[in-house]
């Protein structure tokens, strides 16, 4: 190599070091949430012609409130999926933490005690999941499948199979938080917005987020870099469970009652929302906005079928269809990218 070519190489280096490979718009267009968002807009556009009831404030209020509950859970699920794990126990955990919350408040304790008990229950279950998976190296699928059964059973035992609808002295406040709205937006949607912003920050700016991504990308490399992989994995399962605890807190307040039957099969919706939102089951990919966008699409499908007068029995068909399309799209994008 001559001096001159070296010189030009150095100049090219100089200019490329500071440059991003793609423009910001291109980068966004490569993400799954963007395309799901396009799908949402398209369905929305079609629906405005199909039904007059679609573009009403009331309908939007309902849609957003309905998907907010499992959108919150999907934020945590996305973190778990980012580590190439899975958490099947969130539906059952919703019931267990909801029941514990109900029992504490029914016994006359204030809402703050109810909240703390709910979150501690969730964190505890997440901790057990995490320790079994990270330290004993059990497969996440089987571990959390076991926890799905255990948590549901525990919910039945502690509730003595009874419904709880008395929430003690703070009942009104509790039901206001879960069921009412501020500035025309349901409170649970505010929670979802705040949580999404928080996760956006976490994935972009926190060391923890960076480490979780690294573990999803290459756990050996993460380990060799001195990242406490096991501890981080435990914390990821705890975060996922606590998102579920938070959703349970809001949901029980919204319905004004809790039984040990809530959240049955909810894990499937939550996982579907995460995956439609761009979380890759192989790990290493996560978008904060993916969880609410994936959840929004699923709820939109349900709502649209309803308004279009199509039998609601078709709902799961279309959710499944979109899930498969989402995975397919990701495959095609990956092939194109390499």
């Amino acid at each position, binding site marked *: 190599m001559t001096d001159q070519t070296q010189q030009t190489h150095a100049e090219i280096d100089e200019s490329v*070091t500071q440059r991003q490979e793609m423009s910001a718009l291109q980068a966004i267009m490569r993400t799954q949430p963007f395309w799901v968002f396009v799908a949402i807009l398209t369905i929305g556009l079609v629906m405005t012609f199909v039904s007059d009831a679609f573009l009403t404030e009331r309908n939007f209020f309902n849609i957003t409130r309905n998907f907010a509950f499992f959108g919150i859970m999907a934020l945590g699920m996305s973190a778990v999926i980012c580590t190439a794990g899975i958490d099947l126990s969130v539906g059952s955990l919703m019931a267990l933490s909801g029941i514990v919350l109900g029992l504490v408040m029914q016994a006359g304790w204030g809402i703050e005690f109810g909240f703390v008990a709910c979150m501690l229950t969730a964190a505890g279950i997440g901790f057990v999941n995490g320790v079994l998976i990270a330290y004993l190296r059990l497969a996440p699928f089987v571990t959390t499948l076991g926890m799905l059964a255990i948590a549901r059973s525990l919910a039945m035992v502690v509730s003595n199979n009874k419904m709880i609808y008395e929430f003690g002295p703070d009942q009104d406040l509790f039901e206001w938080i879960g069921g009412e709205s501020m500035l025309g937006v349901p409170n649970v949607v505010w929670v979802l917005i705040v949580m999404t912003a928080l996760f956006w920050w976490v994935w972009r700016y926190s060391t923890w987020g*960076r480490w979780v991504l690294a573990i*999803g990308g*290459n756990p050996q*490399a*993460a380990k060799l*870099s001195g990242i406490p992989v096991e501890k981080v994995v435990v914390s990821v399962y705890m975060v996922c469970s606590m998102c579920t605890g938070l959703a349970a807190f809001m949901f029980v307040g919204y319905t004004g009652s809790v039984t040990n039957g809530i959240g049955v099969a909810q894990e499937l919706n939550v996982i579907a929302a995460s995956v439609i939102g761009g979380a890759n089951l192989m790990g290493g*990919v996560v978008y904060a906005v993916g969880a609410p966008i994936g959840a929004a699409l699923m709820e939109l499908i349900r709502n649209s079928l309803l308004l279009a007068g199509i039998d609601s029995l078709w709902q799961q068909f279309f959710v499944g269809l979109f899930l498969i399309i989402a995975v397919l799209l990701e495959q095609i994008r990956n092939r194109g*990218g390499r």
Partner: protein
Amino acid sequence: MNLLELRGITKSFGAIHALQGVDLDVNPGEAVGLMGDNGAGKSTLMKIIAGNYPPTAGTIHIEGRETQFAKPIDARNSGIEIVYQDLALCDNLTAAANVFLGREEKRRLGPVKYLDHRTMFEKAGELFKELKSETRPRDLVQQMSGGQRQAVAIARTRLSDPKLVLMDEPTAAISVRQVAEVLNLIHRLKETNHAVILVSHRMPDVFEVCDRVAVLRRGSKVADRPIKQTSPEEVTGLITGAIEAA
């Protein structure tokens, strides 16, 4: 004074003696090639220096002080960095993120600490420039060539300004042009007074960059001589056992 001084390193796994009384010295700014056939004990020796496991017998001195490593992090704290054979990079992260993995630069806003992307991109860019590599800090490792990945792995080691860099087969499985790139990186390390131990099967690479070559056979060191006083033919003979010892 030697930077690294190994004396009588022995490692047994049950009845198997992977290493038997190996001595090895490395000076600052020196590149030592460590060669041997599969199963000769190269990897075991590397892992002992890297702190993956302790020797059964023998001592390790770093800059004259006796040292014992319980964990890889101890070796790193003593100024030894390792470039792993599989490179141990996260494909889904940027080059800069990989360089700083586990040692992220942070800024503080009140009680909240957050990642300082700007500083990390800049510093990683400087490191790549020092290594005269065309690697771009913002690119995902996924899209990189073998040579660029090497540069990322080597830039990682430069972050702590180590005294000794262990490289395990850095030129296996990459293209000819990229091999030249990696060898340049090793030259760069030597120029900046870093010692390098290069484990390699590739004779031309060792003769190109190393000052000295040590040959292991069946757990013992059978030769250790300046590169100028030996030849590829002699080293091959030593590796296979055609030549008993030198």
